[in-house]
């Protein structure tokens, strides 16, 4: 499959080609959909051993307070996100969203607190808009996109064994801890986190070191390269949102069942309640509930029910109560897996719904997220 010459390349482009990556366009980059093993085998390898993902297309941006006090950067960022950033301790990471005035989500992101600055990781497709959003709204900070940094994810139950062979400190980290590790001579900002539901790490490093470090990690026989195809099926089983599919400008964090990411200090009655775009809508939804909720879905049979499929209350396919936002075949469950939005009266776990697939009904049960239990090292 040819790829457009206008597509951007990550620092690992040569590595992808050397390992037979099937390159596809994604958010303006040529990215590996899969390698020779294929999506099913790659997915299972991450659940059983360790996978190495190139996620260098994602946006990395540093926020420095002009005052020199990191708390000022945290207070500034809190104007754009509903999470408590002030309380985020140095060398810890937290998940949040950029919200809009109507309560929707502009992007979701990770925030890392460092001693003197914040480091943000945002979605590839949104990163230019996010950078502009930050520059427009954080005049009291220096907003520095970091295009010369690569990002690797090392994910799976054996990830700690592999990474601690390079730097023993990897083993001391807990879920969402951040640590400077030295991997094959490269100084890396490493968080214990990921997008698979497995234990693992995300490794931010200089682009010039990325190819060498990736090849060193791949020297470990339990490590294999994993493409975007398996990344998607892994995150779906793990119940994690894909921006643009499961969350977007029309979904609020409360509808998306992400209220766990809005800490008490930002809620009504909290020390710094509200103060982010759409706060009135979201805080109201937290108290009064929402008309629809994001839920896990388990269709019966083997046919995947995919993005856009309508959900009905019964087999007559008359009373539409929701829609699938992500759907695929789950290689770990060996069954179709999906997520979607369902009208709250029908969103209880165990509720039997009917998805429409090629004109007929497929019995589909509302299920707790994650669909495959997470194995983070908390």
């Amino acid at each position, binding site marked *: *499959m040819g790829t457009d010459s206008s597509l951007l390349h990550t620092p690992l482009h040569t590595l992808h080609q050397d390992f037979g990556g099937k390159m596809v366009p994604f958010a303006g980059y040529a990215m590996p*959909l*899969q390698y020779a093993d*294929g*999506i*099913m*085998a790659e*997915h299972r390898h991450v659940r059983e051993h360790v996978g190495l993902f190139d996620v260098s297309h994602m946006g990395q941006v540093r926020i420095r307070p002009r005052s020199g006090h990191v708390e000022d950067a945290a207070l500034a960022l809190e104007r754009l996100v509903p999470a408590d950033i002030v309380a985020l301790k140095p060398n810890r990471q937290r998940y949040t969203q950029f919200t809009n005035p109507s309560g929707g989500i502009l992007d979701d992101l990770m925030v890392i607190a460092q001693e003197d600055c914040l480091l943000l990781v945002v979605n590839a497709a949104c990163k230019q808009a996010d950078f502009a959003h930050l520059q427009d709204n954080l005049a009291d900070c220096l907003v520095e996109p970091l295009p010369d940094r690569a990002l690797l994810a090392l994910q799976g139950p054996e990830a700690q064994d592999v990474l601690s062979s390079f730097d023993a400190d990897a083993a001391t980290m807990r879920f969402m801890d951040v640590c400077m590790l030295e991997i094959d001579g490269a100084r890396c900002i490493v968080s214990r986190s990921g997008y698979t539901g497995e234990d693992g790490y995300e490794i931010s490093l200089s682009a010039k070191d990325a190819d060498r470090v990736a090849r060193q990690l791949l020297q470990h026989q339990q490590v294999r390269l994993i493409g975007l*195809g*398996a990344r*998607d*099926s892994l995150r779906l089983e793990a119940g994690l949102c894909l921006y643009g599919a499961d969350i977007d400008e029309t979904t609020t964090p409360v509808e998306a069942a992400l209220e766990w990411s809005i800490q008490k200090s930002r809620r009504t009655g909290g020390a710094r309640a509200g103060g982010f775009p759409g706060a009135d809508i979201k805080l109201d939804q937290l108290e009064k509930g929402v008309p629809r909720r994001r839920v896990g879905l388990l269709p019966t049979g*083997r*046919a*995947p029910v*995919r993005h856009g499929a309508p959900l009905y209350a019964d087999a007559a396919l008359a009373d539409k109560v929701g829609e699938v936002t992500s759907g*695929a*075949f789950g*290689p770990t469950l060996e069954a179709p897996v999906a997520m979607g939005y369902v009208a709250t009266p029908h969103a209880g776990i165990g509720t039997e719904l009917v998805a429409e697939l*090629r004109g007929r009904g497929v019995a589909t049960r509302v299920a707790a997220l994650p669909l495959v239990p997470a194995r983070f090292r908390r």
Partner: protein
Amino acid sequence: MTLYFTSEHEWLRVEGDTAVVGITQHAADELGELVFVETKPAGTQVKAGEAVAVVESVKAASDIYAPVDGEIVDGNAALADDPSIVSSDPQGAGWIVTFRLSNPAQLDGLMDAVAYAAFVG
């Protein structure tokens, strides 16, 4: 018995007025491992270009089209239990439907193995 290929990466093995239809090795490689195959019921009348089956990988659903006009005689029942046969043996045990041709003259518009190999490049 004659083997034909289409630009949609399907093959037909024709005997008399009946054809066995499947996808080519090239198509199987492009689709990746399949997780679900659904064929239209026996007796369905289709025109060239209409779907006779849907094959699904982890990532996406793809229609398999009727190469010529005809009627579906049978779907490959083995694929319900193990759709990966299509991936592992697309031009043998992984056949998808058998098909009765209603206008065999349409076969003249299809490729032979040599032309298809050139088409795939």
